């Protein structure tokens, strides 16, 4: 395969690699693919103070690259990738994350997506805290950031495979020069070009299995932006990986706190979630038992077949061995299936390695389609990754198409003859292969739920009102895979998330619905302040969130706020202080995030979004849309109407009760918005006030200009 690859150098940029100082390279790399121009910009102390790193740096670079009129496929849209000051630390669990930002083809606004793999640390060790790629290449192009040779090259390529797992493998060996671990590749696949839900694959080299492994930055069509820039891959080359590389200000404290957290994971994970054995697959049966596992396009939260896709099944399927997507992670949850043989598509009958599946893929591409076949999920996982498709958006989009088919909103005429009834394995896989080729009904589904609603209404005459209720997207982004109907806090967690309904900003469903930790409105609003901000902090630093709260200290339940896992928050503040030399306490971490979080909201506003109307969610996320859904949980809903809302339901039909409950729940969601906006220091229209941005130290002239243009200040 490597022999077929032909590369022609378009431009080379030699640079002098700076030493990392206390977690920072102190410069960013800017590449314009249209002009083949490359430049380095310094990182100021103020930039570090205000934006910290990671997503903060990405957002600042993106803000400066785009205008309010910029669309996702305009050349000036910048694809920004960063690690963070703690990223690349080789002894602290979960310290290898990259975060990617761009203007999204699905939302039209700013998207952010985090991902494991070696790229972020290698980018930083090569001399760059962040990378911004703008412009468009005319021919298939790769960008090579070589920290060892201290040069950046733009290469036109021919003969590179189309599929991501092969691209990563070929480029790893082509540039690795016998040392494959020195290479990390960012790539997408053929479907990214033809859909709006393309993902990026970030690689890491697995020595034991002698192959490149993949992790995904999935959300918001970030792979589609990449493909439309003419990029086939970005390659980072670096060696060695040592603790000294990040130049921690206080190495001894860092070693001490890293050891505490690492050892705790080793001791507690086997007793708790067993992430190191089964990853997030443990969630499947838990969610199912609590009526939270989406089935049939989020109509229901439970199915008796769910255990067929539970942790016991995937634990047996996963290849045994160390699965850390960065050095030194004792959680090591990136499991995969070896020697899987797909039953369809271009790899039919051939053995492949599949990275995953994780919970979101099992739910999105399995239960939400009414399919409870683990091998089917593995095949969907494989093709989504290698075609460059986000498994969450793909699953949620197909689920919407299936329900539309079952409701008669579309038929076989529109689907090209595919029977899209829930449970149709062959049809679901056929859609994936069509997406990869940009053909047939798959090309329509690949536009995502928001655009499918428009197409179905405009071209097929489908009932828009029904589709608005059941199409599980908000802000243009497809929902991730949790049922939020019975948790107001999670409805807020989804609806008020800056980028759209992705659980990584606020995963409150269990705390709210199962544990009832936040019964009052004010408590929910406080949770929707603290949790999104602390979760934001990981993206600023180059860290994974899972070691924070997917394994907890043995005595965590005895603490005052067990949901926050304050022992870990304390360790993270020590970790940050030890690397950067900037001494911080837990409350300071929240303040750091609050600055960037508000800045991101104002960037959304700059792009024409980021207001109250954009925090709307479909009713399917709030409650039962149909009589069938209501009656399936009639005892619950009748009880709520009587006991919580004090409504006399005697003699009322199910349809009347659906309408009553809907009015009450929609009112309650609007009240939640008010409470959260108040807590965040935003106007009733969901815009940060001038006082808030001044308090946070982000009242830059350009920020105030955006606020002024929207009647604030």
């Amino acid at each position: 395969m490597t022999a077929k690859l032909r590369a022609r150098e378009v431009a080379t940029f030699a640079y002098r690699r700076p030493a990392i100082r206390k977690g920072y390279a102190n410069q960013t790399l800017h590449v314009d693919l249209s002009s083949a121009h490359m430049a380095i910009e310094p990182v100021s102390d103020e930039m570090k103070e205000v934006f910290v790193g990671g997503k903060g740096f990405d957002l600042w670079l993106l803000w400066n690259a785009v205008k309010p009129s910029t669309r996702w496929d305009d050349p000036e849209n910048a694809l920004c990738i960063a690690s963070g000051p703690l990223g690349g630390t080789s002894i602290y669990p979960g310290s290898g994350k990259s975060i990617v930002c761009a203007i999204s083809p699905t939302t039209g606004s700013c998207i952010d997506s985090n991902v494991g793999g070696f790229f972020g640390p290698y980018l930083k060790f090569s001399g760059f805290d962040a990378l911004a790629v703008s412009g468009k290449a005319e021919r298939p192009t790769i960008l090579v950031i070589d920290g060892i040779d201290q040069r950046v090259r733009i290469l036109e390529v021919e003969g590179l495979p189309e599929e991501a797992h092969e691209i990563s493998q070929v480029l790893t060996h082509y540039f690795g020069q016998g040392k494959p671990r020195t290479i990390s590749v960012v790539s997408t696949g053929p479907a990214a070009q033809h859909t709006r839900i393309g993902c990026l694959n970030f690689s890491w080299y697995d020595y034991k299995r002698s192959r490149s492994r993949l992790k995904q930055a999935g959300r918001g069509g970030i792979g589609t932006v990449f493909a439309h820039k003419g990029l086939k891959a970005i390659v980072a080359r670096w060696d060695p990986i040592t603790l000294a590389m990040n130049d921690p200000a206080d190495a001894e404290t860092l070693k001490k706190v890293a050891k505490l957290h690492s050892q705790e994971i080793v001791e507690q994970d086997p007793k708790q979630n067993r992430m190191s054995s089964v990853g997030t697959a443990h969630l499947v049966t838990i969610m199912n038992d609590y009526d939270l596992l989406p089935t049939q396009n989020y109509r229901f939260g439970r199915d008796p077949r769910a255990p067929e896709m539970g942790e016991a099944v995937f634990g047996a399927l996963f290849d045994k061995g160390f699965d850390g997507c960065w050095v030194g992670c004792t959680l090591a949850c990136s499991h995969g299936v070896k020697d899987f043989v797909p039953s369809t598509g271009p790899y039919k009958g051939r053995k492949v390695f599949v990275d995953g599946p994780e919970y979101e893929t099992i739910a999105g591409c399995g239960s939400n389609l009414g399919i409870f076949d683990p091998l089917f999920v593995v095949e969907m996982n494989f093709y989504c990754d290698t075609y460059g498709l986000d498994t969450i958006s793909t699953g949620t989009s197909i689920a919407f198409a299936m329900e539309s088919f079952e409701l008669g909103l579309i038929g076989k005429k529109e689907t090209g003859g595919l029977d899209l009834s829930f449970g149709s394995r062959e049809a679901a896989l056929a859609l994936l292969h069509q997406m990869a080729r940009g053909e047939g009904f798959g090309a329509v589904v690949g536009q995502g739920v928001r655009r499918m609603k428009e197409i179905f209404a405009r071209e097929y005459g489908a009932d828009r009102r029904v589709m608005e209720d059941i199409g599980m997207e908000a802000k243009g982004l497809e929902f991730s895979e949790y049922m939020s109907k019975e948790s107001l806090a999670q409805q807020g967690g989804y609806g008020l998330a800056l980028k759209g309904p992705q659980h990584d900003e606020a995963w409150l469903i269990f705390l709210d619905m199962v544990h009832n930790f936040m019964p009052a409105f004010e408590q929910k609003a406080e949770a929707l302040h603290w949790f999104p901000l602390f979760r934001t902090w990981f993206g600023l630093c180059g860290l994974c969130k899972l070691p924070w709260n997917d394994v907890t200290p043995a005595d965590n339940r005895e603490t005052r706020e067990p949901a926050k896992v304050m022992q870990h928050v304390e360790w993270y503040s020590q970790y940050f202080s030890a690397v950067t030399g900037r001494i911080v306490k837990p409350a300071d971490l929240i303040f750091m995030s609050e600055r960037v979080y508000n800045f991101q909201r104002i960037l959304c506003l700059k792009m024409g979004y980021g207001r109250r109307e954009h925090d709307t969610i479909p009713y399917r996320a709030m409650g039962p849309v149909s009589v069938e859904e209501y009656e399936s949980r009639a005892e619950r809903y009748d009880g709520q109407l009587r006991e919580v809302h004090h409504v006399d339901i005697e003699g009322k039909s199910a349809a009347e009760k659906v309408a009553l409950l809907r009015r009450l729940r929609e009112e309650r969601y609007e009240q939640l918005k008010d409470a959260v906006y108040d807590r965040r220091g935003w106007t009733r229209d969901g815009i940060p006030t001038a006082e808030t941005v001044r308090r946070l130290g982000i009242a830059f002239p350009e920020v105030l200009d955006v606020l002024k243009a929207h009647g604030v200040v």
Partner: protein
Amino acid sequence: MVRVGERELTWQEGMTLEDVIEALGDSYPYSVARVGSRIVTAPHFASVLVPDGIEVFLVPLVAGG
């Protein structure tokens, strides 16, 4: 004998996971536990039998990624 963390409980015929949690005298709202390697949620605590000699792990919180 059934082990739960540092505690050792006397095993009885027909002992359920709910019995184990009650015997601990702990008011924490557990939602998930492991009986050996098997995951069990609260709705099933009363119906899952606990074998003699097993270790039970009480998962204090399900937090999500």
